[in-house]
């Protein structure tokens, strides 16, 4: 029972008062960082790194892991309350979370986001502990063709994110793909659509686009003089602010979906939590009994992506701890931290530094508990924010968005882009274009293009590289997802013809 022994040893390390304090501090700081848009966990950890030299490495790692998890918990807060994604992985949470807030269910959305995060986060730590080595093999089996198929599968979700018109959704997605292609091309060093601007060489950060089309356009739409600036309803009483038992029942599959998808996507070095949250949202919608209600404020639409982005944390630790391969910006900095403290993160890490490994595992368990305890009481507090009158609320959204974008890139050019995409989002609203497909195209476009070109470079231009088992399977699922709505349509037509009463 190596696992049990290891875990006991880990808890012994993590539960010392000092390390528990580090864990709590990390979780608290992470939550704050998550709530503030623009400042992400990667940047925070990098800035804190010099301070950790003087600390005990175990305590410091526990604190950094707390920041990593905490940021994922906190990211949903502004998404739900203000339609401003606090973290890139919380963009999808805006779709249903903000609509829930508009219906007076902000408390339920916030509470469910914490609960889903806890369940999926804990699941991913258990999975990390039990199946890390075989999963690491799977993550190495994934290469460019597999990533390409995964991204295609993601893109087919545009069918699910489409509103009334599939054509409009596809057009919005194409614009997203176009924006994703801007900047310096990795393969040829050619500049694409930079319009001669130095700032455009790095492409457009998708967080700017997301905050622009979600938050800024929301403010603009609410400024129309015809509409009275009404306050959002907020129910009174602690009990009415929490998710109900029915909510929990509605979300039971979402918890599972979020946990599995998040963990699986997390172990892949080339994917990331944003893709995980989009995928689990799409999957949640595709098997839902009432897919048409997604986007109008259903609780599964919050639980699935929030669960997925937390499960990604445990998943991303798999290649980091078992192979020494960082899959994301945050894990890359954790790797640098381990090196700086004198550890040797690599294939031998678990074997040679068991106290560190099991201490981290145990602290991830404890971190999730701390975060749940920390976040649930904050729910009513945050929900009160919505009692603010419109003349205070909308300037607040604008302020938070602008400060967030400025902190992430410290450039005025980004603010110009933010305004531009706010306007784009507003026009899309007026013309009844869905905005989610645009973001989807932007998130997946870059990775998909790279994966396809990498595949073809590997095979010397031979497309048959895409029919290896894993990509073929994923592409078939994608094809199936595309065809299903056609059948559903056909079926409804058929039902009408058979039953003249309808």
């Amino acid at each position, binding site marked *: 029972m190596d696992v049990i022994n290891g875990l006991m040893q880990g808890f012994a390390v993590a539960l010392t008062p000092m390390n528990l304090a580090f864990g709590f501090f990390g979780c608290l700081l992470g939550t704050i960082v998550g709530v503030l848009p623009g400042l992400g966990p990667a940047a925070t950890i990098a800035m804190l790194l010099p301070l950790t030299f003087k600390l005990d490495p175990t305590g410091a790692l526990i604190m950094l892991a707390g920041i990593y998890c905490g940021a994922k918990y906190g990211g949903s807060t502004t998404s739900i309350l203000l339609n401003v994604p606090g973290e890139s992985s919380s963009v999808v949470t805006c779709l249903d979370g903000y609509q829930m807030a508009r219906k007076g269910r902000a408390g339920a959305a916030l509470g469910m986001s914490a609960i889903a995060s806890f369940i999926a986060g804990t699941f991913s730590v258990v999975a990390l502990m039990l199946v890390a080595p075989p999963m690491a093999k799977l993550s190495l089996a994934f290469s460019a063709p597999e990533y390409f198929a995964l991204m295609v599968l993601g893109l087919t979700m545009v069918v699910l994110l489409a509103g009334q018109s599939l054509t409009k959704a596809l057009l919005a997605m194409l614009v997203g793909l176009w924006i994703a292609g801007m900047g310096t091309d990795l393969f040829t060093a050619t500049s694409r659509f930079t319009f001669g601007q130095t700032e455009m*060489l*790095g492409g457009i950060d998708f967080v700017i686009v997301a905050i622009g089309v979600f938050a800024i356009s929301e403010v603009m739409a609410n400024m129309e003089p015809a509409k009275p600036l009404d306050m959002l309803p907020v129910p009174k009483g602690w009990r009415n602010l929490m998710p109900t038992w029915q909510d929990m029942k509605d979300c039971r599959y979402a918890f599972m979906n979020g946990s599995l998808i998040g963990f699986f996507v997390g172990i892949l070095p080339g994917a990331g939590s944003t893709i995980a949250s989009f995928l689990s949202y799409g999957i949640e919608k595709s098997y839902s009994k009432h897919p048409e209600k997604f986007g109008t404020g259903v609780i599964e639409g919050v639980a699935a992506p929030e669960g997925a982005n937390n499960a990604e944390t445990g998943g991303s630790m798999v290649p980091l701890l078992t192979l020494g391969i960082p899959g994301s910006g945050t894990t890359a900095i954790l790797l640098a931290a381990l090196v700086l403290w004198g550890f040797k993160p690599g294939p031998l890490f678990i074997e040679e530094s068991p106290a560190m490994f099991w201490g981290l595992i145990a602290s991830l368990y404890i971190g999730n508990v701390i975060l749940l305890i920390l976040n649930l009481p904050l729910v009513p507090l945050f929900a009160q924010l919505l009692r603010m009158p419109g003349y205070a609320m909308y300037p607040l959204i604008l302020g938070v968005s602008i400060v967030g974008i400025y902190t992430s890139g410290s450039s005025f050019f980004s603010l110009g882009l933010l305004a531009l995409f706010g306007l784009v989002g507003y026009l899309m609203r007026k013309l009844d274009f869905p905005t989610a497909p645009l973001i989807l195209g932007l998130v997946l476009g870059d990775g998909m293009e790279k994966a396809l070109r*990498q595949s073809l470079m590997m095979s010397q231009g031979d497309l048959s590289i895409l029919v290896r088992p894993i990509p073929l399977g994923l592409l078939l699922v994608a094809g199936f997802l595309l065809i299903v709505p056609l059948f559903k349509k056909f079926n409804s037509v058929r039902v009408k013809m058979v039953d003249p009463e309808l």
Partner: protein
Amino acid sequence: MKFTKTMCALAVVALASVSGAAQADWKPTKNIDAIVHTGPGGGNDVLARAVAQMLEKEKLIPGRMNVINKPGGNGAVAAAAIAEKKGDAHTIGFVSTVWLANALTTAEAKVTLHDLTPVAGLLVEPAVIVVRADSPFKTLKDFIDVAKAKPGTLKQSGGSVTSRDNIVRQALQAKTGGKWAFVSFPGGGERIAALLGGHVDIMVIEPQEAGEQVRAGKMRVLAQIAAKPLVAYPGIPTMKEAGFDVPLIPQIRAVMAPPEMPKDALAYYEDLFARLRKTASWKKYVEDNQFEDGYTNSADLDKWIKQIETDMRGQFQSIGIKTVR
């Protein structure tokens, strides 16, 4: 290695000038801003934050050094940000070879290193060429032989087309007539995963990154790209020793300042980094990360950058990458 001789010569000059330099009269009157071209956690950001910490710990500066991230455009945005501080005595920037490559290939990069004031060279980053541990290639020659016999069947994972990884490949291809594919991956982790997963055959990697993989028996080192053999890789031939004496472009990290920085301030910073280099913290940092010392003073850094740029332009043009400068 073409740059070995230059390096030795530069080192001699550098040492002479350091010992001769008098303590400058000027001192910072407020905190120093250090501009880097990556977000927090990127290579130059980590370097700048480590330097900031060392400067404070060794009490080399009166105040603090703040790291300011100006990401975007592979250094172009940061270069513009430094140039904007024309004449300022409290701004410096940490630059790397990427800035040169980027300015050569992108017209949008309007400010280049020539517009800035060179302060001091800091580091040269060596690299090693690795294969998966179960690869049939025991030496670099084994690999090249197959690349010549079956051109196009082998693959290398790496970064951008203008990165050192690709320049090394191009130089080897030109010298030997072998041919293999270069697959670009944006992240370092993805490049390693592609090699370990058996999707590519070879890669150029930082010595420190490869260390643990080699120790765990997952990777084998075929050759090292370094002026002198690295302490951590005894018995591994350098490129020249392996029989492939190809022109290589050093991967450098250096400090630059805004245009028209006051003379006395420039002298202060030049001296500051000369003093930093002598501290125990710096020596440990260089050793831990398996870098090579690349200290040069301002005048030599200027010559060095011009030399690298000329070599790089030649390389790019010979392999068909369009240069704009």
